[in-house]
C-alpha cells in the first residue's frame, strides 16, 4: 500500500494519489504512517532523481503537486485526530507590490510545500503592509519576497525596513529572489538569504529552517 502511494507521488499522479489515500484511510490506515512511509519517500525520491539529473523540473513539480494533493486530504484527518505532521517550518511567500509576475514564486511555493514547509502564499502585487500584517498574524519562520522588475525590487527593501520599524525583524528570516535580484542586492537591503532559482530556494529555505 505504502509503495503504491510512493509510486503515485513520484509519477505525479494526483488522481491516483487521491484514490489510493481514500482507499487506505477507508481500510483503517494510519494517516501519519501514510505520510511518513508512503508520501515522504515518494517526494524525497523525486528530489534525489532531480539532483541526479534523471528527471527534469516539470516532473519534480508534478510530484510536488501530487504531494500537495495527498497532504490536502491527510492534514484534515490528522487535525481531527489531534495529530500533527512534522513541518520544516512556516513560510510566507508573495510577489511584491506593483509586480504581477508569479510563475517563479508559484514554483517555489509548490516545491516548498512538497519539501515539508507549511506555505502561506499571499499571491502577487502584495503591498508592504499586507506582508507585515501576514507576518504578525502567521508568525512565520521565513518570509520570501519575489520581484521580477528592477522597478519593483525596491519593495523588498521597503518590507524589510517596515519589519525593523515594527520590531518584527528578528522574529524571522527573510529571503529574496527574482530575475534582477542578486546576492549583492540581498546583502545591501539586509535580507538573510538570496536564491537564484526555485531549487536553490528550497535548499536555502531548508538551511535557514535548520539554523533557527
Amino acid at each position, binding site marked *: 500500500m505504502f509503495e503504491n502511494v510512493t509510486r503515485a507521488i513520484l509519477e505525479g499522479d494526483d488522481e491516483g494519489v487521491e484514490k489510493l489515500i481514500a482507499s487506505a484511510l477507508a481500510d483503517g490506515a494510519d494517516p501519519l504512517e501514510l505520510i511518513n512511509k508512503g508520501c515522504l519517500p515518494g517526494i524525497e525520491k523525486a528530489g534525489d532523481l532531480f539532483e541526479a539529473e534523471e528527471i*527534469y523540473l516539470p516532473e519534480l513539480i508534478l510530484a510536488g503537486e501530487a504531494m500537495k494533493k495527498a497532504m490536502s486530504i491527510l492534514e484534515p484527518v490528522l487535525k481531527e485526530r489531534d495529530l500533527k505532521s512534522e513541518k520544516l517550518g512556516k513560510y510566507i511567500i508573495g510577489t511584491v507590490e506593483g509586480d*504581477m509576475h508569479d510563475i517563479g514564486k508559484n514554483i517555489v511555493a509548490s516545491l516548498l510545500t512538497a519539501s515539508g514547509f507549511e506555505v502561506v502564499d499571499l499571491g502577487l502585487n502584495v503591498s508592504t503592509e499586507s506582508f507585515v500584517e501576514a507576518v504578525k498574524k502567521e508568525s512565520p519562520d521565513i518570509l520570501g519576497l519575489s520581484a521580477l522588475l*528592477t522597478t519593483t525590487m525596491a519593495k523588498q527593501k521597503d518590507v524589510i525596513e517596515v519589519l525593523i520599524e515594527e520590531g518584527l525583524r528578528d522574529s524571522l528570516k527573510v529571503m529574496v529572489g527574482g530575475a534582477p535580484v542578486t546576492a549583492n542586492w540581498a546583502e545591501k537591503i539586509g535580507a538573510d538569504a538570496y536564491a537564484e*532559482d*526555485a531549487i536553490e530556494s528550497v535548499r536555502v529555505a531548508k538551511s535557514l529552517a535548520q539554523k533557527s
Partner: protein
Amino acid sequence: MKSLLQFLSDSEIEMIHNASMSILNKTGIRVHSEPVLKIFAASGAKIEGNIVKLPPALVAESIEKIAEETVVLGAANPQWELELNDQSDRIPYTSPSGYSPYCFDLKTGQKRETTSADLVDFARVCEALDVVDFFWPIVVPTDQPGKLEELTSLALALKHTGKHVQCSCTTEKTARWQIEIAAALCGGEEALKRKPLFSAIAAPLTPLTFERGTAEAIATLAGKGIPVATMSVPVAGSTAPVTLAGTLALCNAEQLASLTLIKCVNASAPMIYAAEAMPMECKTVQLNYAAPEYPLLSAGCAQMARFYKLPSIVSDIPLEVMPGDPLAFERNVLKVAMSYQSRSTLAAWLGSMELALSASLAQLMIDAEACAHARAYLGRYDVNEESLALDLIDKAGPGGNFLAEEHTALHFKKELWLNELNKPIILEESHFPDYAKMAVATAESILDRADDKPLLEEEMVREIDRILVEAGRDILGC
C-alpha cells in the same frame, strides 16, 4: 532568390490564426485598467470583471485597419530612417538588446549596476557601428529614480544617437512625457506622428494579461500615432503550452489583442508585431535563449506577422557567449544566419548577457561581428537572363569551364562572399584569434574616438532637460 525560413504551411497559419481568435473570444484577456476596459467595452468587447472577451468580428475589423502604407521609423539623422516594408526581401534591422540593470565593465570585466554614463557609452558605440540600424537603450540608468528610468533612457538615447530609438514604456505618464520630449525634437506632435523618432516596447504579461501601466501606455502611445511593439515573451512549458503550436497560438492571441486595443484607440496607429518566444530550460524552468526551438518559434512568429501584413520584431538571437576560437565564432554566425532567415523586420539582441539581465560592450562587439559575417548567408540572388547565363553555358559546353569568362569577372564580386570566413570585419585584428581581447580593444577604440558630447544643439539639450525636470515633478509627485 533569397533564404527564407518558413516552417508553417498556409493551412497551419490559418489554424493558428483561428486558434488565436478562439482564445480571445472564449478565454479572453485580463486587463488591469479601468480606462482600458472602458475602451474595449465601447468597441463591443464582452467584459466580465476584468476579463475582456474579444468577438472575432471586432478582431477582424482591427486587422482590416492595418494600413497598407509602409510604417516609417524616423531618426534624428535621416540617413537612419527605416521603412518597415516586406522584410522577406532584406535582413532584419538590428539593434542592441535591453533593458538590463547590470553590465560587465569594459575595463575590469566585473559585473555591476548600470548608470546613465553606461547608457551614453553604449549609445556612442552603437552610433559608430553601421551594423546597428536602430537603438534600444540597452542598459537601465539605475542611478535615476526607478519611475524615471524609462524616460531618462529615451532622453539620453536621443541626445547621443542619431538613430531611431525604441525604448520601453510601462506607464501612461511615461508615455506622455516620452511623447513630449520626442515632439520637442521634431517640431511638434504632427511631425512626430509622420516620422516618429521613437517607438515603444510595451509588453503584455504572458499569458493573456495586460498590467495597468502597460495597457494605459499602449493606449496613450497609440492615441498619438507612436508605433508600439507589444512584445509578448511566451515561454513554452511555463507561461505558454509546451507545444510550439500552442505557444504560437497564445502569442498570436496576445498580439491580436494588442492590435485590437491600438486600433480601438486610433484606427491609423501603427503596430509592430513583437515577440520573444522560446522554450523553458527544463532543469530550472528559466528562459532558454540557447534552445534550438527559439529560431523555429521566431520563424513562426514572423510568418504570422507577414500573414497580417504587420512589421515585426520577433527574431532576437541572444548569443550571450564570447567565442573562444574561430570555430566557436562560426557557430555564432550560423545561429544568427538561421535566425535572420525568418526575415523579421527588426531584431534587438546585440550585447545581451545572462538572459538579457546584463549587458556588455565586449559582447556587443562580438555580436555585431557575427551579424556582419552572417550576411554571407543572407544575400539575395537575382534570377534573370543575365544570371541564368544560358549563352555562356552553351558556349562552355560539356567539359568546359567559366574561369576566364568576362561574365565571371563581371559578377564574382557581387555573387560571392569574398571575406575570409574568420577574418574580422568590424573588430580590430590586432589580437586575432582572441575574440574577447579584439572585442574590448575595438570598443575602447570607438569610445576614444567618439565624442561624448550630445549630438544635439545645446538649445535642444536644454529643452530636453527642462522637460525632464517637469516630468520628474509630475511622475515623482514632488
